């Protein structure tokens, strides 16, 4: 080592008294450019915690942390950024489904604690939170990683379907399903809202992978009626789809149908690995072959129980068969789902009523003969408005008429019909009557009203729109006052008055009407479709005292739908809902409850 190398470091001391050549900063501000990508901002009220930012982050700089209340459509989680890993690429901003995440143009921040550089933007307040006009935002419009418009399956035109009960919606083609599936960001926000908690992102991914057998397995984990739900589910999942914040929500229902449609029924057992189910001896009786009963039967037989269903009517399906018109849900698709469940070894006896009358089988007998009983008897009784004239024999309840149509029972179809009700069942009877009129008269004469205004009607939007396309007059916002009856005892029409609001300031049902604003709608048949009631008279007798009844006469159950009678479980519309997917979920959970009771060691 020479002497120069040894002394060189000390030459730096010669600069001690000289002016520095560096600039004295950070005392002077040097703001980032207007579109500079600096520290994150998050509008935590708009964010729904979908986690797309976390998924896309190449550096794993983002964790989702509990920060708000969890509710439908909002996980309550919010992204926490680790600035030890963030590379400021802004992919998290570009993929954000709600546009809540942005970057400020602030890039300088000093702290002596490294943990300070890991925080939840919007929750942990920072000085750049309100600097909204600068930094990086997702450029709008048309800067999206996924198409905002949904792929619409084709369907019969109003002209082609208006006199026909042939299924109106065509399923997705492979290309259409692939394109629609490609819009999913796999956040899973939808799964909590689905009453059955279906593995929605997983089965959509199976479509993307063109692995429809895996898709079917995922469907049957939570839903043994996929052909049915793929057509008529109330698709609550779609109301919370995060893509729906900026575009059309995913067509989750049609994607489910695509999987079920593409798998032939003869391969179901092999795909679902149910060819060799073993019975373990214990027996469960199920009252009613509706969605909840069939769901319970499916999961119980898979768990090794002998299951027998007691069905009042001549075919299985409950309201799915007897309440939903075949243009929405064809009978062969109902049969495909039900036949598979029965093929697993589920026994079914038709035309048998559970009750205390002659020719009926009593609940007591079932309780004695079986280790457990599940009841899902549904809502089959039509409710009446009770307005003057509503007791006339030409005033019908929608469940009766819908059932008659399925059974092929003859009844008079008049030229003019008035329907009272704004829900999906009201739309079903409206559109069914319109079809029957079209067949008979070549024209439609149905007018349907509801207390609710246009935007508050409980029916699905597409049901209302399609009904109008088919020539039905749907005129919401009117309250029925009386049915006008002529001297022969036949209705001539319905008197209505304008309805302004349904609920008072405290949220109680209290319709406000304008009695001076009235109309008369002619019709020789009036149909009431304002909700359905249940018939649980089979509970009468010695067990009734052991059951607890809640609001609207509903039997109270625990979280596994077990009643005060330990061997009696109840589910479906008589307990919760009403809708098919909720019925399926209650049947599934009751099956788990029954198994926990009968096999507590598992």
């Amino acid at each position: 080592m020479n002497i120069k190398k040894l002394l060189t470091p000390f030459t730096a001391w010669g600069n001690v008294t000289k002016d520095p050549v560096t600039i004295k900063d950070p005392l002077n501000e040097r703001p980032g450019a207007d579109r500079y990508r600096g520290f994150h901002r998050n509008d935590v009220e708009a964010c729904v915690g979908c986690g797309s930012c976390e998924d896309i982050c190449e550096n794993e700089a983002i964790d989702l942390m509990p920060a708000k209340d969890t509710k439908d459509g909002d996980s309550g989680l919010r992204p926490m950024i680790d600035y030890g890993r963030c590379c400021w690429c802004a992919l998290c901003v570009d993929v954000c489904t709600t546009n809540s995440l942005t970057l400020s143009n602030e890039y300088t921040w000093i702290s002596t604690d490294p943990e300070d550089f890991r925080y939840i933007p919007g929750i942990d307040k920072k000085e750049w939170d309100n600097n909204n006009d600068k930094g990086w935002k997702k450029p709008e419009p048309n800067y999206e990683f996924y198409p905002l418009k949904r792929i619409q399956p084709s369907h019969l035109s109003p002209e082609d379907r208006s006199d026909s009960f042939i299924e109106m919606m065509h399923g997705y083609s492979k290309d259409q399903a692939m394109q629609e599936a490609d819009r999913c960001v796999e956040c899973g926000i939808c799964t909590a809202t689905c009453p059955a908690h279906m593995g929605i992102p997983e089965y959509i991914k199976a479509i993307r992978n063109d692995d429809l057998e895996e898709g079917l397995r995922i469907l049957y984990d939570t839903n043994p009626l996929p052909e049915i739900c793929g057509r008529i589910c109330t698709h609550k999942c779609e109301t919370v789809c995060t893509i729906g914040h900026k575009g059309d929500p995913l067509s989750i229902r049609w994607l489910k149908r695509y999987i079920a449609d593409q798998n032939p029924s003869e391969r179901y057992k092999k795909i679902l690995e149910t060819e060799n189910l073993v019975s373990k001896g214990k027996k469960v009786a199920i009252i009613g072959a509706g969605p909840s009963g069939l769901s319970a039967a499916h999961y119980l037989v898979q768990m090794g129980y002998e299951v027998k269903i007691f069905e009042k009517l001549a075919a299985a399906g409950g309201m799915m068969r007897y309440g939903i018109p075949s243009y929405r849900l064809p009978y062969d698709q109902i049969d495909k789902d039900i036949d598979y469940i029965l093929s697993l070894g589920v026994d079914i006896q038709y035309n048998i009523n559970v009750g205390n009358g002659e020719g009926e089988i009593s609940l007591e007998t079932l309780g004695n003969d079986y280790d457990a009983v599940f009841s899902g008897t549904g809502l089959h009784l039509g409710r009446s408005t009770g307005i003057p004239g509503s007791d006339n024999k030409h005033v019908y309840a929608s469940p009766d008429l819908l059932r008659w149509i399925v059974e092929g029972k003859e009844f008079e179809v008049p030229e003019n019909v008035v329907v009272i009700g704004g829900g999906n069942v009201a739309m079903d009877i409206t559109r069914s009557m319109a079809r029957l009129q079209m067949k008979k008269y070549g024209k439609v004469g149905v007018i349907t009203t509801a207390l609710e205004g246009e935007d508050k009607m409980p029916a699905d939007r597409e049901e209302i729109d399609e009904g109008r396309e088919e020539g039905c007059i749907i005129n919401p916002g009117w309250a029925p006052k009386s049915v006008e009856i002529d001297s022969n005892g036949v209705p001539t029409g319905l008197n209505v008055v304008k309805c302004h609001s349904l609920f008072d300031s405290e949220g109680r049902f209290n319709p406000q009407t304008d009695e001076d604003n009235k109309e008369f709608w002619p019709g020789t048949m009036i149909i009431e479709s304002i909700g359905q009631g249940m018939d649980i008279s089979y509970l009468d007798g010695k067990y009734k005292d052991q059951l607890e009844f809640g609001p609207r006469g509903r039997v109270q159950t625990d979280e596994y739908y077990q009643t005060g009678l330990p061997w009696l479980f109840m589910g479906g519309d008589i307990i919760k809902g009403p809708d098919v997917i909720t019925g399926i979920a209650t049947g599934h959970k009751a099956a788990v409850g029954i198994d926990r009771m009968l096999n507590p060691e598992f």
Partner: protein
Amino acid sequence: MQKGINNLIEKFGASDLVERRSGLSFITVDQTKAVAAITHLKDIDGYTVLSFITAADWIEDGKMQLTYMLNNPAEVAEIAIRVMLERKKEAGESMETIHHLWPNAKKWQQELKEMYGVDFPTSPGVNDSFILEGWDDMPPNRRDFDTKQYAEDTFFPRGGRVTHDPATYMREQLDPKDPQYYTKKKKKDINS
């Protein structure tokens, strides 16, 4: 049309002209004619400043795009020359150097070699490290470089980090008795 464009089209067969705004045009030139076209722009048409050279990896199309941004100070105009190279699976695309036209080009070319794997033979120092000292992996700006895998292999995770899957977390919060895991397990038990 800005100065030089006609020459590019007529003399060098340039195509795909995009006039992004007044005084900024993008145009594509064949790889074999690109350096000649750039030389013509510099020496004849007044594009005397090389602003930068950059690249884009069109992995789906099997192309590696080079973009030479040239500036004409007198006309206040810019032309971006796009050159589409055939992309190689294992990197090593090759392009003629232009450091003889602008000495500073050697630094852009050195960076492109390091970050994209595009070689510029005879460019001084082209194989020297630019910023990635001791790098022994695929050039990191190539699209098939797995940034996440590299980060996982190279760095240790920060202690104390946890995250939550939205779907699982929501079900735990809203329906802790979710039946599906139970029945899945049960079915497996029955079949076994």
